[in-house]
């Protein structure tokens, strides 16, 4: 997918961000993340608006636990992942996966998915977006980004109207947008 489509998707996201507050925006991103999972063939089992982990989904390989965050472009803020964050996504079985998923919501939106094992030694040190990108699972991040862009472009006009509750309910019922 070319840069122009990323840019158009970025404008959709910018419109959404202008329509809701920062906290609600974070929830919307979490809601959209569940629909990315649906598009990638996963079954969403659990979505927590409070507490850990943010999302639990079932894939062909096993359970995936995720912590989701949105980075508003320009903040460049380093993230300090707590032990609780990491424990929440720690795989319980060999087939499980745990990810910290960061949505970079700038003019060219993209996702960074970082596996739990990569973050284990970093829960005491703040990690900037560039470090998280360096630690990220490139393939998973690209897949998520591609689905995210399609999702944003397809539903651009309606995005502000999709509440977190709506997105979560649809995802839990297995109904993709």
């Amino acid at each position, binding site marked *: 997918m070319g840069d*122009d489509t990323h840019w158009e998707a*970025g404008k959709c996201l910018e419109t959404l961000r202008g329509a809701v507050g920062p906290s609600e925006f974070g929830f919307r991103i979490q809601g959209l993340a569940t629909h990315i999972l649906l598009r990638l063939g996963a079954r969403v089992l659990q979505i927590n608006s409070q507490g850990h982990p943010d999302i639990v989904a079932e894939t062909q390989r096993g359970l995936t636990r995720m912590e989701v965050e949105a980075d508003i*472009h320009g903040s*460049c803020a380093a993230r300090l992942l707590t032990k609780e964050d990491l424990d929440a996504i720690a795989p319980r079985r060999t087939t499980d996966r745990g990810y910290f998923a960061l949505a970079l919501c700038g*003019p060219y939106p993209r996702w960074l998915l970082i596996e739990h094992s990569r973050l284990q030694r970093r829960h005491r040190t703040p990690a*900037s977006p*560039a470090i998280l990108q*360096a*630690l990220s699972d490139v393939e998973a991040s690209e897949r998520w980004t591609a689905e995210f862009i399609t999702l944003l472009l397809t539903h651009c006009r309606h995005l502000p109207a999709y509440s977190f509750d709506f997105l979560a309910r649809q995802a839990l019922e297995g109904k993709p947008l």
Partner: protein
Amino acid sequence: MNSKGFKLQQVKIEGFKGFTGSKTVPINGKHMFILGPNNYGKSSIVEAIRWGLFGSTRRPGEVVANQSYAGDCRVELQMEQAARGWTLKRRLVTGTSETRPELLDKQGQPHPLTSVLPELVSVPAGEGMHIIGKAQSAPLRRLPEDVSPFERTIYSYLGLADVRGAISRLEDFIELQETTEKELAEEVDKRKINIESELSRVTEQRDEIIKNPPWGAGSIPTQADTISRIEQFIKELSLGVTAQSTPVGGLELGSLIREAEALVDRVSRAKRGDVESALRAVLEKLKQGQSLLKQLSGLIGRVGEVESEIASTEQGLARVLSGETLEALAKAVEEIERQVEETALPLDIQKKAHAWLERQLHHPERQHCPVCQEETKSEDLIVSLTNRIQVASSQEKEIVAKRDALKHRYQEASGLAEQLNQLKTKLASLQQQWEQIKKKVLDFLASDVGKQDVGVLLQGRIDELDNARLTLEKQLRETAEVYQEWKRKLGRLQEEVRFHRTQERLLELERQRRQLYDVEQLLRTLVLFGDSIRRITEALKGALNNTLKRELPGINKKLTEAFVALTEHPAYNRVYIDDSILPKLELRVASDDDPLRGWLPSQVLNAQALNALELVPYFAFSELIDLPFEVYLLLLDDPTQSFDSHHIEILVAKLAELGERVQLVVASHEVGQFQQLLPNYFGSDDYMVVSTTKWSRQDGPTLEIPHGG
């Protein structure tokens, strides 16, 4: 004594610390005890040997050169191993803290230090097991619980020094890697945000242009298309210019559009300039013509008025003269005046006086009559004169009346004659002015007008000029409209150029983004490499700790034995390494009375026991080592501080045991104690005593060295 290692045979010292001129101390491979009071130069000898071997001092940055001595600062050590003699020379480079070691064989041939004594260049002074240098205690600088020598010694003993060193270096590397990683990541984040913001801004600009395309309904032009359009525009524009058109072939887009901008400006200025200049000339001429016309009209009017006045005055004069001349009338007046004087003078005077009084202010008070000097009122005089006039004869009255009428006619005629003269003079002046204006008008018309009316001709010319003004003004408006049209065309071309500029900028930003992507890949490599190093370090630490935990019981036993033997401490009879903070090895002391508790030595031991504790590793581990190294030398600077006699004897006894395997260099101020004890524990051929008996700034220490020492 160990026969495999190097043994010190002699030390030569010059300009080092307390030493001034060169002094030689022969050792001949024996143990050397340097005895003397404090501040007599004992420590300088121990330190000189350490410096000669390692080039480093006990404390970093310590000044070694004697500041009162002008000569070199140098130390020369003669050593022997298996009948081979070596000389290690070290000299301080003047003005620096650097030293130059030089290793010579017996024949004076130089050898690289690394090939003969590799250990000396790979470890700092005091480290490792091949050389043990115990510095003189300096309680203000070194804390009693500073047991790092233990840590070093134990790691060396366990053969884990390399592992511990590797962990330390890996930790240093991780620290450096984290700093680099953080700095690089911050830079990447910053640049990425800048590039993406700029990309977003420029893309928006480009899309704005595409929304209202300056190229119209056609497809997006290439740069070549735009260049061609600008060239065409320049060509069209140049056609209307008399000046030579600018050659524009081969110019790049920026230069081309600047050329077009300049040309529009230039052509517009030129065209407007011509018309404006012509209009200015016409307006000037028009103004001049109108001014002349105004003057001309004014003059014609005034001439007419004056001519009319002249005619009217001439008629008035003729009427008053009634066919007479003014001179004849003057004579008639003279004649009748004479007749009045002769026949009616009193009446004339009375009438004049009456007229005079009538003109005066009437005063109520009496005044003197100017003629008779009688006091009277003017009203009374007027009445009196009126009465007199009334009683004059009719003849007198007639002649006076006739004189008055004739005089009045004459005065009227004189006035009119004078007025006529003035009018004629004025007319002449106006005619002169007319001639002047006429000349100006003729100049203005710049043509021979013959007998034509100049006023009419002037008006005609003014009308012509006004028409010309209107035409030029129209031309000017048309030129402005044409200019606006060029500007519009130019604006569209400029917008096209801006479009290409944004496209170029987008390409440039894309290039920067690709470069940043390469940097991101490098950062990824750095970060993942750092993580690998962390995993390796953790694994090494785990393995090291396991080994330490396995080995510590045996080590603790040895440490305890050495400590008990040296101190015979009544309360604390156990020494051990705290295994809760591995791989850091920290010493604790304990008592059998309370086996579950341990203390930091400084918390519970007195100064004597603490000093003894510092010597523990040398005694504990020297027995265990198979001396695999080239030199084995124990340097002890005043080890008996705070020791009582009993413990000094214990120390000397232990030193004698140690001396079986190690060459000792020991400095002590306990002169009497040592002199008494040494013969009891050492064979007379195995040791020598160097006494420091005096010290002065000029000569340094005075040494007493036994003959054949």
